[in-house]
Structure formats: C-alpha cells, structure tokens
C-alpha cells in the first residue's frame, strides 16, 4: 500500500467516523493504520482517542494503535490544562486594567464546557476586546510577559492596518501564542460583522466571557473557508457546536438564522451548515433550508463550491486537489481584501516565499 493511497483512505475513514462514531468498532488494523495518521494531521487524534475509549475498543487493538491513542489522549489532557492556565493568566493581566477579554475558538469552547473542546489541539489563544481597549490590553499583556513576534515591515503593516487582530504575541516564559482581536474579520474584507453586537451579547462561564451560542457558531462559520479549503477540524468543531446548541438552547436554529442576517453573515452560515451536513452528517432541521435559501449562492456557484471542496478533501494530494485548494485559497483572500490589494499581496507572498 503506498503512502498516498493510505492517506486518502485515512481521510475517508476520518470523515466516516466523525459522521458515525460507532463505525470505529468495525475497523481493521489496516484501517487504523490509515486513520491514525489522518487524525493526527487533522489535529483530531485526541478526539479519536476519546471516541475509541467511549466504545471500549482499546483492548482489542494492535499495540501500535492503542499506544498512539493513549499518547494522543495524554497530550490532549495537557492542552486542556494549558488553556485553563492561560485563561487564568490572561485574566490576571487584563481584569485589573478594566478589560474583560472574550475567549474565542478553542479557549472559548473549553471555557463554555463544550464536549468538542475536550483534547482539542490548541496552538494559540484568541481573545476579542473592544477596539477602544486595544492599546490598554496590549500594554497590560506586554507588562505581564507577552511580547510581539518580530515581523518585517510589510507583515507589521498587514496586521496593524488591514487585519482584525494585532500581530501575534508570545509569552516569554510559557511560549504560548496569543492573538488579540478587535473584530472577527479583517477591516479590509467585504464582510464586516459589527463587533459591538458580538461584545454586547457575550455569556460568562466561571468568570470567563465567551461569544453567545449563535455568535460562536457564526465565528466558526466565517473561519471555515478563511484560509482555503475547509479543515476537517473546523468542520468537526461546527458539527460539535451545532449538535450541542440544538439541544441545549431553546429556539437555537431560528436565533441562528436571525443573528446571521443581523451580522451580515448569512452566506458563511449557509456554507457552514451545508458542508457540516454534507461532510459529517450534522443533523440540520429540514425546514431550516427554506429560511436560509436566500443566503445560498447562485446554482452554478454552489456546484462549483461543492466540486472544489470535494476535490480538495477527497483527492488528498495530487494535482486536482492542489488546484482546488489553491482556488479556495484565492477565494478566501478575495473575501478579505479589495482586488488590487489582493493582487499585490499574493504577488508579494509568491515572491517572498
């Protein structure tokens, strides 16, 4: 079996077991051999370990498969510990200067006690603060040991003038990265969700503020195609959020549609629902599609997106996948910047790299 065939098989299996966890019980050693690297690469190995443990599969597996799951599980626990500690440290820096940060993405899921946060690989912490508090937050973080990563003049300007976040900060002692946002999308982009609405409806769990359920889903949705083809981990996040909130929150779906329109994020919301259902079978109420029909792209565009997503995920490697991925990458930047700026940016990135 060549590594390319194994990689494709692994990707298919990963999507299948995300759709239906019980399918893990019927896998052969050859399946595990393909699935484990795919899950590792997708940053979902701790999730896989938790699912396998839930099904009581560990004892029946070959030692190499069991050991890798145990190793992922242990590392996943550490990510949880690390994020809780970072939340504590960030609060210690910001609360005294009157800034209450809103924890986004993985840190937010963990603070909210969501199951999909468990064992999630976290490489950086993302926080949102009001733009007016940005300078104060930055000064307080620097005073508490965070430092900006050195950047060249172009990247510095890219972040400061055009982006919705400051250049990444790294803590000098702990090494953990922190992204300080004042919005969830770039200033230069076509979509401009109003941060005041997001900040006005946050929810607090155990002292940590996070986006409200619908905003949390919408934030995950805008990032689904943010850097090219959807990452399977992002699909898994959206799936986990939707499944959780659909049962935990009254009238969740209606609120999601309403808030998506309010923030001007109906299109990304449509894509998130569509691909979560298509790729991992997220249960979406059938009635919902009529209420988001207005947000769907024109027929040919929808078909093109489907084809690009399928090709970029399914072929795994190879020319068609690379081309599809590149098309989605350009599209993601198209949404971030006006055309001329995009052209300059891509040329620069191509020349520099």
């Amino acid at each position, binding site marked *: *079996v060549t*590594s*390319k065939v*194994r*990689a494709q098989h692994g990707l298919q299996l990963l999507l299948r077991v995300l759709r239906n966890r019980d399918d893990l019980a019927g896998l052969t*050693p*050859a399946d*595990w*051999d393909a699935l*484990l*690297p795919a899950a*590792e*690469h997708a940053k979902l190995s701790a999730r896989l370990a938790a699912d396998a443990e839930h099904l009581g599969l560990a004892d029946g597996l*070959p*030692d*190499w*498969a069991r*050991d*890798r799951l*145990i*190793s*992922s599980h*242990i*590392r996943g*626990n*550490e990510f949880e*510990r690390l994020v809780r500690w970072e939340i504590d440290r960030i609060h210690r820096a910001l609360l005294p200067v009157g800034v209450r940060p809103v924890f986004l993405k993985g840190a937010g899921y963990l603070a909210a006690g969501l199951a999909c946060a468990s064992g999630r690989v976290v490489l950086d912490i993302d926080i949102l603060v009001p733009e007016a508090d940005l300078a104060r937050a930055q000064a307080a973080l620097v005073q508490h040991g965070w430092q900006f990563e050195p950047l060249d003049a172009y990247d510095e300007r890219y972040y400061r003038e055009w982006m919705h976040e400051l250049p990444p900060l790294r803590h000098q002692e702990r090494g953990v990265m922190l992204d300080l946002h004042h919005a969830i999308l770039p200033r230069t982009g076509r979509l401009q969700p109003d941060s005041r609405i997001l900040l006005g409806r946050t929810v607090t769990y155990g002292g940590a503020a996070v986006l409200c359920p619908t905003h949390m889903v919408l934030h995950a949705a805008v990032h689904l195609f943010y850097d090219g083809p959807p990452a399977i981990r992002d699909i898994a996040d959206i799936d986990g959020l939707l499944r959780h909130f659909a049962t935990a929150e009254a009238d969740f779906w209606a609120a999601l549609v309403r808030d998506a329109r309010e923030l001007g994020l109906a299109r990304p919301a449509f894509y998130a629902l569509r691909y979560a259902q298509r790729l991992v079978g997220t249960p979406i109420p059938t009635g919902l599609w009529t209420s988001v029909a207005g947000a769907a792209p024109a027929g040919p565009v929808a078909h093109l997106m489907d084809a690009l997503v399928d090709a970029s995920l399914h072929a795994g490697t190879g020319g068609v996948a690379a081309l599809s991925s590149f098309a989605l990458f350009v599209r993601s930047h198209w949404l971030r910047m006006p055309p001329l700026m995009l052209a300059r940016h891509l040329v620069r990135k191509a020349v520099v790299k």
Partner: protein
Amino acid sequence: VTLADLPPDTLRRQLRRQGLRLRIGPFVARVASSMAAIETSLATLYAHHDVEPGQDGAHFTLRVDPPRTLRRFVRRQVQVTFDGHEPFLPLPWQMAAPMLEAALNWCVGSFAHRFVVIHAATLALGGRALLMPAPPGSGKSTLCAALMCRGWRLLSDEFALLDPASGTLQPIPRPVALKGPSIALLRAWSADAWLGPEVDNNEGERVSYMRPPLESVRASATRAVPGWIVIPKFEAGAPPIVEAMSRARTVMHLADNSFNYNLHGRNGFESLASIVDRAPCVTLRYSGLEDGVQTIDRLVSKSSR
C-alpha cells in the same frame, strides 16, 4: 526473525515497497527507503532487532529518500517523511543514517507519551537501572557505550522510558551515537565493539553508531527499576569527583531533562519523585573513561552491599 536472519533481497524488497517493520523496544517502526546507505546501516546496526511479520501498521512510519524536487539535479539530499508528511528539513544525502536516527528520536519524543520520557542514558545491572540524565555534550553516550562493553545491559543511550503506573523503566535499545573523539576512544576501549561508518552529522561533528549487543536487544521486554542516578559531566583534565545531590534538586534536574513530564500533570511529577525515592543521585565530573567507569562501579558495589 531478526534482521540478520532476513535474506538481503527480502530486506531490500521490504524497504523499497511497504516498509520494513522493526521492533524497537516497545515500538514498531516501519521504515521505507530506496537508499543503499539506509539498507546497509539497518542491516548492520539493527542486525539483532526483530522484524515483525505481516504488513500490519506501526507506531512510527518513516520514509528516507532523496526529496523529489528540482534541487536533486543540483545537490543530492535526503528527506525523512513521517506519516507521509515532512516535519524535517532535507539534509545532504551522506547524512541519511544519522537523519533516520534523529527522526526516530523525534518520534519517541513526540508520540511516546504513554511513558514519562527523560533524556538520559539508561543501563541495567541485574534488575536495577542506572540513569544518566544530561544534556548533549556531557559525555553520557560515551560513558554508556563504555559501560555496555563491561557487562551492563543497554536500555537506551538517549531515553529513559518511565512507566508512570509501575515506576519501572522500559528498554528501547538502539545504536549508540558516538561523536568526535569518542569514536576512537571506544574503538580502543573494546575490540568487540561494532561501529558503523563515520559520517558528518548536521552539527558538523563526526558521528559513528555502535551496534547494541545481542543480549541487550533480546532483553528488550525486561524492565528495570531505578537503582542509581549519575549526572555525568566531562571536564578535560579533571580527576574524578563525585558529589551527592539532594532529592529535591534531582527531581528538578530530571524535570529539566524530561520531554513530557508536564503532560502527565501531577502523575508526571510523582513519577519523577518516585525515582529519587529509590535511587540515590550523584554528579560525576570525569576526564578519563576508565576513571568514569571505575567510579560508577564503586558507587554501585557500595550501594549494593
């Protein structure tokens, strides 16, 4: 079946196609390569290791080959892929064998979290283990190789794999890396030592790997309990000096040299503490190999009395 039992053409076929599945202590490494240097290096340095039957999976899947970029027409290089991805930068092709060893080290450091992994040379006498936790350059591999030639069983010259549940040390015998002047020292030390060819490594040092003895590889499943901790420090011209180290400082030293004790949380800390409960710790400054080995012998016979 050990690798030495495998007919050369079978070895080559497995390396070129699905990969050779080598049992290395608690792990199965699946190595694929089309390079003659890798074939020779494995056939000699891993001669005593078992080859796993069948085409099952592995803990670590590595491929060692020249990268398929245009650069190959200008400069021959070698690239190691892990699980089909490329976590390492390519190196000059002569470094293929050291690069495979470095990649295996990286695998253990990244995916062996079932164990508390400490950067230490580890050997055993009877059922008790000697740990020499130290950063590179302290001479721990050289001392380790020298002790190995004097009847100690090799667990690893690089890793102490501590099982947090039982507090025992799991062997992972692999070729011992000797660098620079240590190569000639070891050749003079033992006529029986089998050393591979000398190549330059990434840091510009000469490196040669010493094959682990058959008995050590055969006893790969036999764990040992921590018995002694010696923190070696090579110091040119110094007479051997032994100083006791407190249990608290020893735990901190083990933590500094651990890859992942933090991942185990409280369990990790307590595992390290359990080592110092069983094993006294000393620092050893030495300049001569004979001095170092004799000092360790004295320490061991004193505490075994």
